[in-house]
């Protein structure tokens, strides 16, 4: 189970990379493994405003439909259109080519977990 140290995490198993006021969202290795083979991703519209913990994307595995929640609030400025043709990148590279969206942050990131806190959370 991979949990990179340079990312922050949520209890819903999303990760976020914060660089200045830009935040990149994805799902954790644990999440992709629990979902199983991902076969479809519905990305948000560019320009959409999302609140923290709001569903901003949908990921479908062979058997299930899952909402993906925004780790922080912001406006969507970029989406990973590669996932429309290669949704399996969410399984194979959840922290790399499988990123989902980038937002211009409008809120704070106080609620997020560090890698150590997320590791502990997964063990509980």
């Amino acid at each position: 189970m991979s949990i990179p140290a340079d990312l922050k995490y949520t209890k819903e198993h999303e990760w976020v990379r914060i660089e200045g006021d830009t935040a990149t969202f994805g799902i954790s290795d644990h999440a992709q493994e629990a979902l199983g083979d991902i076969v479809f991703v519905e990305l948000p519209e560019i320009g959409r405003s999302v609140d923290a913990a709001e569903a901003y994307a949908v990921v479908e595995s062979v058997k299930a439909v899952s909402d993906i929640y925004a780790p922080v609030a912001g406006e969507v400025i970029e989406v990973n259109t590669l996932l429309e043709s290669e949704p399996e990148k969410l399984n194979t590279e959840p922290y790399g080519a499988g990123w989902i969206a980038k937002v211009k942050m409008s809120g704070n990131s106080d609620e997020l977990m560090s890698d150590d806190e997320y590791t502990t959370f997964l063990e509980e």
Partner: protein
Amino acid sequence: MWGMQVSELLKTPLFDAHIASGGKIVPFAGYELPVQYKNGALKEYTAVREGAAGIFDITHMGQVRVEGVGALDFLQYVTTNDVSKLVDGQVQYSALLNEQGTFIDDITTYKINDEAYYLCINAANRHKDVAHLQQEATNFDVTVTDESDGTTLLALQGAKAQAALQALTEIDLESIGYYKFSRGKIGPTGGSAGGIISRTGYTGEDGFEIYIPNAIAAEVWNALLVGGAVPIGLAARDMLRTEMGYALYGHEISDVVTPVEAKLMWITKLDKGNFIGKSAVETRKSEGVKQRLIALKLTDRGIPREHYKVFVDGIESGEVTSGMHSPMAGGVALAYVKPEHAIEGDVSIEIRGKLVAAERASLPFVRSNVKK
């Protein structure tokens, strides 16, 4: 079927083997069964579709033995298909209806001889089916015995199925035709026993269903794995059957639809004499139906799922009964719509509040490779 209390769940004799292969166990039809193994449903699907062989634990299916001089008359009365057409060693797809003409279950009938048959029934319907059959049997010279608990049922499906299984049995598999079966010894040296092998399945690939005593289940399973077969979970099994458009009880067929709506008149022989549900089916046929089963393929991106609404020319017409992402055909679905929408009109499926365009498709969605 999903979400039953864990305490009520049964394990098949292969439970430990599933765990050993990394099976992710879920409750299904009263059993703890693997939804997938460690490599995931897509790789399992690919193994079956693209030239290997997949092995499925379908022990949850029930087996009922019907014996006696009245066996033929009894089965003609309780099943929809024409049992008199069967020769010894032949299998027939059929159904049990109630007096309303709706489905109690869909089944396969195995003819051993004129006075002995096996019925293979759905796990979730087992107790209902057996009670119904035993009730009806009181009017015939026949005994109905539920033999499910002592029997393990495996399916071995895919292009390499025959080679993998031939190494484990004295039965000449090449001589078993489509929807035929043979009895004989099955299993590795030291772990073999008498069983049944039929050239049947639920995937659209060549392959077999194998009935063996529980005592040798693990030996046979492990020998097939050593022989190169890939274990297949419930998720891939559902993908494979949906691509073929095969009905699944609780989805396309249930106690609210008759064979007329479900496109199963080909197993319902109205000219064979009286049977349970016949007059109701005739009435439904002459008076017309309120819904019809159709096959749909999305023309835009998306995955249809069970219970999603189907619209025709902007009017809500019915709902999806089975839907999936087919690696070969894209978003595909089986759905009930109003009869006036079965042939004509622009079809779409509502996915998360948006209408996604679809078109009517012919079945199967992908090419069948069964050896007919």
